[in-house]
């Protein structure tokens, strides 16, 4: 078994006439939370969307386990066990919480054990089970999006800026939930909230202008304020 669940090898992605990714190479180890950091417009979301097949890589390879998925259709990639939680959460507002979960669970229906675990992680999901998703608060919508990602066993979960616009109490609940989820799967997390990312991440990659400019252990980056400032234009102190 490979030590890496995902490998991106010299991936170039264009959106219309613009080149967004200029040869991204990234290895995501199997298990745990791994973070992709970067400024606005650096190419973080494009990287996740390219992995998911929502943008097609112009060149390079995206390998899941031992399988090249760069030419695969998005739905096939999802069926291989890759879940994607986009920045806008991607829930279906016209459906209830339960219907959203059922959609992601597929034709086999719910695994009662997994459903129970979701309700333990996010009690609001049980409380608002029959409520239309559009009527949930921002934090509850994010919980639903993450619940949908873990309603089935996944090889890899791609999560794009889950803390954006959320209250600190909900962010703390998210940290606990992600730690729990990472025990059974791999999370590739795109985040701008460095405090959140550094409290969860095992490894970190920093992307800038469509290229990976740093790869390493998160604890080392968290400890090196000069490196943070140089790579991200921030220091951990600023977030305290």
């Amino acid at each position: 078994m490979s030590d890496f669940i995902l490998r991106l090898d010299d991936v170039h992605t264009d959106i219309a006439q613009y080149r967004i990714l200029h040869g991204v190479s990234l290895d995501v180890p199997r298990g745990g939370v791994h973070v992709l950091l970067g400024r606005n417009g650096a190419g973080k979301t494009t990287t996740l969307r390219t992995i998911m097949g929502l943008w097609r890589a112009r060149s390079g390879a995206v390998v899941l386990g031992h399988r090249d998925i760069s030419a695969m259709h998005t739905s096939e990639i999802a069926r291989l066990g890759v879940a994607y939680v986009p920045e806008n959460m991607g829930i279906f507002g016209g459906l209830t919480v339960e219907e959203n979960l059922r959609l992601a669970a597929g034709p086999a229906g719910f695994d009662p054990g997994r459903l129970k675990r979701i309700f333990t992680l996010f009690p609001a999901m049980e409380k608002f089970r029959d409520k239309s998703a559009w009527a949930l608060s921002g934090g509850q919508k994010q919980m639903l999006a993450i619940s949908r990602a873990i309603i089935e066993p996944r090889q890899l979960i791609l999560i794009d800026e889950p803390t954006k616009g959320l209250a600190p109490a909900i962010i703390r609940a998210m940290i606990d939930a992600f730690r729990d989820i990472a025990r059974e799967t791999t999370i590739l997390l795109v985040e701008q909230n460095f405090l959140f990312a550094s409290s969860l991440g095992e490894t970190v990659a920093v992307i800038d202008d469509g290229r990976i400019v740093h790869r390493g252990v998160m604890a080392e980056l968290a400890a090196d304020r000069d490196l943070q400032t140089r790579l991200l234009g921030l220091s951990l102190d600023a977030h305290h």
Partner: protein
Amino acid sequence: MGANGPSLPDRARNGRLAVYAIAAAIGLILAFAPFLFGDVRSQQVAARICVFIVLVASYDLLIGYTGIVSFAHTMFFGLGAYGAAIALKQWGPGWSAVLVGGGAGIVAAAALAALIGVLSLRVKAIFFAMVTLAAASVMLVLASQLSAITNGEDGLVYVAPKLLTPATILFTGADGKAAKWFGVRMDGKIAAYYFVFLTCLVLFAALYRIIRSPLGAVLEAVRENEIRAEAIGYRVVAYRTAVFVIAAVIAACAGVVWAVWLRYTGPETTLSFAIMIDILLMVVIGGMGTMTGAVIGVTVMSLAQFYLKDLMGAAAEATAAIPVLPQLLNPDRWLFWLGILFILLVYFFPAGVAGTLMKKGTH
């Protein structure tokens, strides 16, 4: 309930109850239509409402539940109708002709829908709509031009299976003639109406079952956001094609029923764009993506189409002494008032009658 009246969920629940109550009342009236309305015209309207409820509900499965805009729905309706009509004309009255001819029409509709779906559902909605418009136009021209089979613009006149003809006695009375139940003769005419009503009930129930099934939730997800649906593992093109085929099959079944009821099939009664516009208006009036809205939309529109003229004639007579009003209410101006009625309905029920009452789309 608060000081400002019922909350949004309460209003939505009350609205849902009102819509279901209206739909149930319409269903009951249709179920007993031959006993409630003795005249032929009323039964004709009731049968048309039954068939169009299925036709409009199947179209709502496309436009309302899946977000597919198609102008080919009458083409599938026509294929079913022409299949049954040609077989009844060629082989004479009999259920085998209805089954084989109608079945062939339904299979043709399914095959054509699958072909159009596979080839065109990947493209943008507007291009797909144009493809369906072109296909429907070709079918209309073919029906007119292939006179040897379809009898061209004149259409086909044939005899329905014996059970459904007025001469058939279902229950014999003491006088040896057809028995009368609550004043209604138990003959083939009533059998024909209940053939239409029960078949349409089964088809509508099948559609309702589909939207209540897990497939219904997938379709809503596809309509809401195709990319999100893809990202959780659903092949959108496959689902869109499947639902296009299902809607085509149901429309073709409705066409078979319509052909058997009318005992006449021509381009004007099945394939015309006037029918397609009626279907669109009925879906909009009822409320897209509500299914029960089809029941309300078809009933409102059909009653207006068939009785507005009569109502205006009576109103013009009643207001004869008042200046200007009788001219305005002249029955010849019924289309003008139908237009006004449509504008008012859209204004007061922007999401259709059922959609607005059920508070659909409040998010």
